[in-house]
């Protein structure tokens, strides 16, 4: 049923998504775990929670070493507005709070809270469930979503509560649920939609209630027909078919990008520098939606997520439900990967994911996939760079409408002003350009380099500007002090002169008859002035 009607719609262009600029087709590539049921990962012997797992300001630990924590207990509180707290993912004792490797390509560490599980998995029940969320105040719901530590689970980890504003100036009409999952290999959202359809749709309903949206759209690519069927059936069962609809989109990368998805569904573009809410849309990942359900209806903070553990070096790829903080090495051991000599680990999907320098990194809120790849297959993608033949394929697939070949050339030659003129900062780093490049030019790498350099230059500029301001202030202050001193000196001098003159006048009046004496007196008065000047100079 799915195939026929959706195909007809696509062919006849009825009610179909309008697509987005550029893009490439992966068509089900390597989605070997599609349709595999989610298995729970066992409890590891250590859980590591980095204090920053979202976009924004890092959290501040609120537990001490040696303290016992419960599952779901807040262990680090949000700092600043753009921040969400972090919760323990099992009960146990805080063993240490120190730097630990995090999933970042630099291999740098970040302060992390390590918890030694006690195996009891005791739950902190301070958050009470709110199953009748429609009767709860939206401010309280929003606070709950923040308190539960929710951030976008699609990979960008933008704090969820920030999006859920009921703004009078920008009324939200449509809530788009992102079930696209356009990265090759990854299937966690796919399987989640099949197994947790009810929870996902309830989460969507909560969001629609929060922002007072009239329409909900669940976007799924046509390489996941089973998920489409399940979602449509669940919608019918829940009686939400009037407000929420499932839209099937042709498989294309990077359709899962927020900007691209919104363009594909509504035909509207988010204005440069704007947010989706500026065009009356918000979008959220299906995993986030399920987490919203957990946080609101079950009172469970975000302590675990679904991850696809796959890759060509993995003997038995799975979709796993994993506690946040579990180490990647532990996860890969579950699927039969033990030796790491010939293996590279990707955190995320192959198109936008990062290569890990070590397997001892914890799973964080952003982890949607862990791929273990043979070194050769990675190196094949990172072939030696050849000269650009300017074929323009990169520009054709660029979803942002950039000219990647020229942009990369400017970045490579450190011409950052030119690069910005070619809209360097509108690049979303999807990797489509590098993927199609016949010369194997690592275009995205150059863009990242360029962005980093520009940021560095701006920092330096700001610093220089600050120093200049400081020095100017100092100069101004010194000049003012000098002027004040001069003024004082001038007044003193005037007073002295006046006094000397008065004295001279007096003497002149007294000895008016003796002109010679009067002249002497005048000389004395002059000397006196000179002395006074000398003195005041000494004083200064």
């Amino acid at each position, binding site marked *: 049923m799915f195939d026929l009607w959706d195909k007809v719609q696509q062919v006849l262009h009825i009610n179909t998504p309008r697509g987005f*600029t550029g893009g*490439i087709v992966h068509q089900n590539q390597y989605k070997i775990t599609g349709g595999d049921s989610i298995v729970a990962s066992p409890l590891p012997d250590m859980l590591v929670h980095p204090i920053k797992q979202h976009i924004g300001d890092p959290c501040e630990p609120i537990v001490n070493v040696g303290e016992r924590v419960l599952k779901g207990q807040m262990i680090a509180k949000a700092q600043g507005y753009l921040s969400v707290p972090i919760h323990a993912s099992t009960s146990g004792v805080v063993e240490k709070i120190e730097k630990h490797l995090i999933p970042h*390509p630099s291999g740098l560490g970040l302060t992390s809270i390590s918890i030694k599980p006690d195996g009891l998995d005791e739950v902190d029940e301070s958050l009470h469930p709110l199953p009748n969320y429609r009767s709860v105040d939206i401010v309280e719901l929003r606070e709950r979503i923040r308190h539960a530590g929710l951030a976008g689970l699609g990979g960008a980890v933008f704090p969820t509560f920030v999006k859920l504003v009921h703004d009078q100036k920008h009324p939200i009409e449509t809530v788009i649920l992102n079930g696209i999952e356009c990265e*090759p290999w990854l299937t966690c959202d796919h399987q989640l939609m099949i197994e947790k359809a009810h929870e996902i749709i309830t989460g969507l309903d909560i969001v629609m209630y929060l922002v007072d949206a009239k329409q909900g759209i669940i976007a799924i690519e046509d390489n996941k027909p089973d998920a489409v069927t399940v979602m449509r059936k669940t919608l019918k069962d829940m009686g939400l078919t009037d407000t929420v609809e499932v839209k099937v989109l042709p498989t294309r990368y990077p359709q899962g990008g927020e*900007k691209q998805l919104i*363009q594909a569904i509504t035909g509207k*573009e988010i*204005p*440069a520098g*704007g947010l989706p809410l500026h065009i009356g849309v918000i979008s959220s990942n299906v995993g986030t939606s399920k987490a919203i359900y957990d946080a609101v209806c079950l009172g469970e903070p975000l302590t675990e997520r679904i991850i696809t553990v796959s890759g060509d070096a993995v003997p038995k790829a799975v979709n796993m439900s994993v506690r946040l903080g579990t180490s990647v090495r532990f996860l890969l051991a579950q699927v039969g990967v033990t030796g790491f000599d010939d293996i*590279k680990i*990707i955190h*995320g999907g*192959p*198109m*936008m*994911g*990062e*290569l890990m*320098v070590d397997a001892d990194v914890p799973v964080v809120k952003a982890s949607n996939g862990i791929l273990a*790849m043979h070194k050769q297959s*990675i190196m*094949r*993608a*990172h*072939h030696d760079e*050849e*000269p*650009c*033949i*300017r*074929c*323009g*394929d990169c*520009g*054709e697939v660029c979803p*942002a*409408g*950039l*000219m990647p*070949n*020229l942009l990369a050339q400017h970045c490579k030659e450190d011409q950052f002003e030119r690069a*910005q*003129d*070619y*809209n360097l*900062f*509108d690049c979303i*780093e999807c*990797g489509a350009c*590098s*993927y*199609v*490049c*016949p*010369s*194997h030019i690592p275009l*995205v*790498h150059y863009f*990242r380099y360029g962005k980093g350099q520009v940021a560095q230059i701006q920092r330096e500029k700001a610093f220089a500007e600050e120093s200049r301001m400081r020095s100017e202030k100092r100069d101004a202050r010194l000049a003012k002090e000098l002027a004040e001193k001069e003024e004082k000196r001038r007044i003193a001098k005037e007073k002295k002169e006046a006094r000397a003159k008065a004295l001279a006048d007096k003497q002149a009046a007294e000895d008016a008859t003796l002109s010679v004496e009067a002249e002497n007196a005048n000389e004395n008065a002059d000397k006196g002035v000179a002395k006074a000047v000398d003195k005041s100079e000494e004083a200064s």
Partner: protein
Amino acid sequence: MIFLSSPHQHGGNTIQLTMFSVIIALIPAAMVSVYLYGWLAVFLLTTCIGISLLTEYWMLRWMGKPTKPVWDGSAGLTGLLLALTLPAAVPWWMAIFAAVFAIILGKQLYGGLGHNPFNPALAARVVLLISFPLHMTSWIVPMHMDATLNMYDFVTSLQFFFLGPDAVKQTWDAITMASPLGYLKTELGQGVTVSQALVNYNYSTLHAFIGREAGSLGEGSALALLMGGIWLMARHTISWHIPISYIATVAMFAWVFNMINPDVYAPPLFHVLAGGLILCAFFMATDPVSSPSSSIGKIVFGIGCGVLTWVIRTYGNYPEGAMFAVVLMNMVTPLIDYYVRPRVYGYKRGKKA
């Protein structure tokens, strides 16, 4: 450890694949040239390709660069394209000169693959046309017409190729004829109308389409070229933008002016099928290195080529303008790339960051 940035997967396209696809797409045209001009075509093709590869190899060795790029297909493609633009009357030394020029001055001196401002094959062809106009505008009568020169005979062809017409006891006039474009130009100069000139020439649109008119080796058969060109478009090796906008512009101009005065201006179909237009549109103007990289820029480029081609053919001294048009537009490519940019997501057209 080397830092590797995402993506960690690649679509599998390579320079070699791109170049060899174009070479494969040109095989039908090359086969037609062998049918029309026998061994002479074979000699020219092998000479141009062989000398191009050799020059590329020696040039890279001389500059102390790795010689692996010889096999990326670009030098071979340059040789092949060059041969297909040459008339069969070209002798061996001229072919060698053109191939050496194309590789050294057309490509390597600018920094090799990806840095040449002009299409190397076309640049070499332009130099030949200006330097040796006699050979470059003498069109040998193809074999299927009453050719006095038996080009299917290996020895005769070899003698002609190396020693010229005297060696086979022929004169230039006896073995050559005018191309449709050249004939039309001369006749129009003498006040004959277009339709009368075409009848005098015994011109047939069908013959021009399947490739039975005199001309350069590869430009004869529109059919063979279209087969290759459409295959390349289907494979996404070339995009439709340049060929379609180029040919459409020429046809548009020809149609409008033909409507105004059919006696002086040739009809659109004649323009499209004549000379090197289709070869240039599908294989020369689409050379990625010397054409703009954005789709919209490609359309501008194609329109520019079309206008210039028609203008040169109609008002210029040379009967054929396609190759000059492409070379001239090659010069404008950086400018097009600078000014004509695609609209960036989230911006209004024409507005910059």
